[in-house]
């Protein structure tokens, strides 16, 4: 293309006309004025950079000691109850020692310890394999508090996360969960889930943001301690300093954040 003075003047003229149209465009097609709004942490929110939990299993002797905690959790989060094991949804449940800690295979162990009920839940790993498996980032490690969060809005129900989780901490909604809930007993403040999504414990992130401890911790009468693993002065760190603890399948390198005093 040949350039000439005449051509340059023409282009400059067109550009000037274009610029002068800007106020018109603004007046006709104004972007909605958003005002200055923002989202923040609430004034009462508990702040921690890696939440962690220590369960004192010595305080849970029988199934009757753990049942109220499970009920508190499942009530708070509208976790449905289906009697068919294939449709079961679990956030917090109890299991046998050898299922919880299959890598501890010593023969002749303390009978009392072997037959306690062990509370198990999502470990909110520091190195979570489920997060790496999720194709939509529906499950992710939240930077602000270290919780492994499920964003139900993004879950496509592929169940890769369930295959990846070595703790079986995730459940799939094969049925509409509302069929497994009694309407009068639901917590109307918390959403249910729907058929076709995966769910699990959320470390009560909705309660933490209101300044409340997780429901199971509240119901445990001190047998479960919850706090910030990164804060050396926190209650969990004190309990970890003073007691010998174990974690589930720690050899896998997932770095679980739920500790057990045995």
């Amino acid at each position, binding site marked *: 293309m040949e350039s000439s003075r005449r051509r340059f003047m023409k282009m400059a003229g067109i550009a000037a006309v274009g610029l002068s149209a800007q106020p018109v465009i603004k007046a006709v097609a104004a972007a*909605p*004025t*958003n*005002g*200055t*709004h*923002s*989202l*923040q*942490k*609430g*004034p009462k*929110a508990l702040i921690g950079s890696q939440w962690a939990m220590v369960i004192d299993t010595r305080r849970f002797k029988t199934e009757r000691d753990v049942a109220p905690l499970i009920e508190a959790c499942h009530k708070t989060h509208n976790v449905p109850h289906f009697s068919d094991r294939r449709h079961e949804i679990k956030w917090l449940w109890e299991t046998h020692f050898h299922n919880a800690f299959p890598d501890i295979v010593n023969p002749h162990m303390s009978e009392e310890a072997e037959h306690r009920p062990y509370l198990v839940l999502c470990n909110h790993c520091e190195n979570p394999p489920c997060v790496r498996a999720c194709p939509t980032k529906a499950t*992710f490690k*939240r930077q*602000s*508090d270290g*919780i492994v*969060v499920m*964003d*139900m*809005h993004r879950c496509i129900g592929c169940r890769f996360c369930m295959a990846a989780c070595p703790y079986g901490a995730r459940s799939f909604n094969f049925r509409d969960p509302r069929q497994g809930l009694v309407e009068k007993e*639901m917590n*109307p*403040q*918390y*959403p*249910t*889930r*729907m058929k076709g999504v995966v769910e699990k414990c959320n470390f009560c*992130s*909705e309660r933490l*943001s209101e300044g409340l401890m997780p429901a199971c911790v509240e119901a445990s009468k001190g047998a479960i301690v919850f706090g910030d693993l990164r804060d050396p002065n926190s209650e969990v760190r004190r309990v970890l300093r003073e007691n010998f603890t174990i974690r589930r399948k720690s050899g896998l390198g997932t770095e679980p954040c739920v500790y057990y005093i045995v």
Partner: protein
Amino acid sequence: MNDKKWIVLGLVIFLGLFTFPLWYNLLVRPGTAAPAPEVVLTDKAKAARQCVMPTEFMKTDHMQLLDEWRLKMVREGTGTFVNPEGKMFAASLSNTCLDCHSNKAEFCDRCHDYVSVAPYCWDCHLDNPKGER
């Protein structure tokens, strides 16, 4: 070019049929278009007088606002909304929006039915945050 009159006739018939809905509405059934719905405000909303954002913004942008709320609340853990006047609200669909607009059927649904949108939020979110029903 002997077919000219057939082509023109065909075109006229085609155009007549194609625009049938338009002139049918205009000539045969004038004034029967569904009127824009009146949304009903609850007493609680009336007492508050103001929505979380200016009404004009809410009319056009409440879905974007809700999207932002759930994104920030779920993914960043920032669950408190501060509006331009500095008022704070919990960023929650059921517990905030439906606290004032507890008459979902006469408010959200009435408008959504009119514009034919069916948000799937209620598959999970409960529309009765106080458990009154």
